[in-house]
């Protein structure tokens, strides 16, 4: 069974391709990118006017299952993923029970197979029950299929524990994805510690609560040279400076930026907008400018959604009680295209690279390319289509996003996973 996607602008940063070309899919694999003249085909997809690129890779998704299925399930979350153009997602371990045993890993993998929309890669917990006390069975978890380790949602308080974990795993080539937050600074904080927090009388979460932990962990990384750290959802300008220096020094450190942190500022929280309450918080204009600068300088390793779906009952409360988090899978490309590409911060090709091969490389995933012989995970984009975000149309159970009712440019038209169309707009 052969399908051809013809007349589209193929962008495959992994292979440095950007040209009008045919993509030939043979069953579940990519057979050819180029000229399909003379090849017999069964199906064709007309991609005129569209961009054809590898399915996106998300390093930071909360699927909420097991444990919090009111917020999201593996089924709804992976459907939301493909609606956002993602065919590979890495799910964070703050479930209940958390991903700290092989049993939970296989539960998630089975559920993901059952759903069948995209690849789901579990991220194992750094500590048992994410309590920050006892190391997890990293070797067993890696064998079971964990692609990285994280206690996301919480920092690793104990520096010696993180050090020990890095030493223990230094020969297995894994990555620790760190949520960097010093709670002594951020405890009870609601939004960014800045002018809006002062004006609204809300307790702030200062930049230093993030940057001080990054500084600490760079010191730890320096002492375990084979280890690799990935810094999640970087939001503060000071953090970017620290990581930039560490990279220059040659340390194995990567970082991600979320769509909301590259687009929005603390101003979104005026009127106590709980949908803009997220951790780390939306920061100041200066931080946003620094993040855009980091994109311009090609410092950023990945755009990751930190998709954090919540039921609305946890958002329609006073902002102090509201859950942190933004449902991000289905707006990710539109946001990146609108706020980075259309504002000439980076090229479309670079944006796609940050959503595909670059994140795949961070966790060492076999994904994010249109290389011949790889699985046919493909997304078709209309990079000029304007649309208004309407959370009623979300596949995700999480309708919590400050982008609701905002106009974005750039839409996901079709998503193909292992040769099958799993989403059509």
């Amino acid at each position, binding site marked *: 069974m052969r399908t051809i996607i013809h007349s589209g602008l193929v962008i495959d940063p992994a292979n440095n391709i950007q040209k009008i070309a045919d993509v030939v899919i043979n069953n579940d694999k990519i057979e050819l990118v180029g000229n399909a003249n003379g090849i017999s085909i069964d199906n064709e997809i007309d991609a005129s006017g569209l961009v054809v690129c590898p399915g996106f890779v998300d390093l930071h998704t909360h699927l909420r299952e097991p444990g919090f299925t009111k917020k999201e399930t593996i089924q709804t979350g992976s459907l939301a993923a493909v609606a956002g153009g993602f065919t590979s997602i890495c799910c964070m371990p703050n479930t209940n029970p958390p991903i700290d045993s092989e049993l939970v890993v296989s539960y998630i993998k089975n559920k993901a197979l059952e759903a069948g929309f995209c690849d789901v890669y579990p991220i194992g917990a750094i500590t048992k029950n994410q309590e920050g006390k006892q190391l997890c069975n990293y070797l067993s978890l890696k064998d079971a299929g964990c692609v990285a380790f994280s206690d996301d949602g919480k920092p690793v308080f104990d520096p010696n524990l993180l050090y020990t974990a890095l030493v223990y795993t230094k020969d297995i080539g894994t990555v620790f994805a760190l949520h960097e937050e010093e709670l002594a600074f951020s405890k009870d904080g609601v939004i960014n510690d800045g002018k809006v927090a002062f004006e*609204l009388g809300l307790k702030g979460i200062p930049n230093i609560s993030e940057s001080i932990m990054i500084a600490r962990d760079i010191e730890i990384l320096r002492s375990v040279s084979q280890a690799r750290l990935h810094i999640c959802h970087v939001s503060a300008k000071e953090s970017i400076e620290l990581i930039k220096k560490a990279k220059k020094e040659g340390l194995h450190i990567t970082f991600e930026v979320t769509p909301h942190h590259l687009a929005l500022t603390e101003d979104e929280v005026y009127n106590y907008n709980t949908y803009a309450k997220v951790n780390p918080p939306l920061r100041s204009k200066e931080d946003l400018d620094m993040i855009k600068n980091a994109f311009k300088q090609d410092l950023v390793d990945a755009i990751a959604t930190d998709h954090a779906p919540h039921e609305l009952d946890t958002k329609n409360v006073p902002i102090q009680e509201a859950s942190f988090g933004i449902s991000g899978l289905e707006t990710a490309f539109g946001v990146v295209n609108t706020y980075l590409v259309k504002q000439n911060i980076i090229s479309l090709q670079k944006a796609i690279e940050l959503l595909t091969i670059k994140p795949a490389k961070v966790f060492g995933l076999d994904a994010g390319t249109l290389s011949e012989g790889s699985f046919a995970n493909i997304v078709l984009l209309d990079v000029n289509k304007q649309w208004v975000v309407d959370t009623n149309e979300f596949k995700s159970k999480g309708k919590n996003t400050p982008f609701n009712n905002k106009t974005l440019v750039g839409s996901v038209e079709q998503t193909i996973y292992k040769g099958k169309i799993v989403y059509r707009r």
Partner: protein
Amino acid sequence: MHCLGLKYFNKNQVESILEKAVYFKSTKNYTKSLQDAIVVNMFFENSTRTKTSFEIAALKLGARVVNFDYTKSSLQKGENWIDTITNLNAMHPDFFVTRHAYSGFAYYISQFTQANVINAGDGTNEHPSQALLDLMTMYEHKKDIENLKVCIIGDIINSRVARSHMYLAKMFNWDLSFYGPSTFLPQNIDIKIEKDLKQAISNKDFVILLRIQLERKSGVNIPSLGEYNKFFGIKEPIGAYIMHPGPVNRDVELDSTVYIDRNVLITKQVENGVFVRMAIFDFCISN
């Protein structure tokens, strides 16, 4: 109309409340503008002055007052905020007067009710009736509320009174400054900070002292109340009028011996509070 904060009011509106308050005080002519209205007091924080003051103000205008006791409410049984407010709203009160430790609480409530919501203090956001009664007290002593020189001393970061005054300062072109230990002052916010206590109290029309709010963790940002009193407390009468939203920690912000000085307007503020709150009720129901 709600009274959620002075950030939502313009100068004309503030002036008309002030005029009405002065009128009520001078004429004792209380036009029963709240005749048969139901006022629900919802105080989630302790209060002597504000709660009683709102209650008396409502009674004087002919309203009936219901005091919602959260400690005996179904919130204790786990009923959520929206259901609680929606149910109270279904009984069609005319006013909610709310105080809560959450900033934005009055605004939050206002989204779920047709009643007028009056903010009697929300966290560290605003305390509009306090700022307005301060304004009335200033008016009585200066007869002009434009271009005043005012300094607020104390825990500015945690003060809802200071924030409400910032909006008055903009409206009436005050020279408004702040003073206190650095840990009480916001960083990187565009406000005028005095460099020492002497500067803070000199050449001012009014000095407003704030209470060290131990319940809002002022305590962790200074080493001791004794040191605060020694370096930031007012220990002798000064040239400016002294105001304080109360309750006063005697011998911390203000020495007991100064409390009785004629330039200290604290009791006047409390007296004016009733008239200002009458004027706020009257303003909200007639707009």
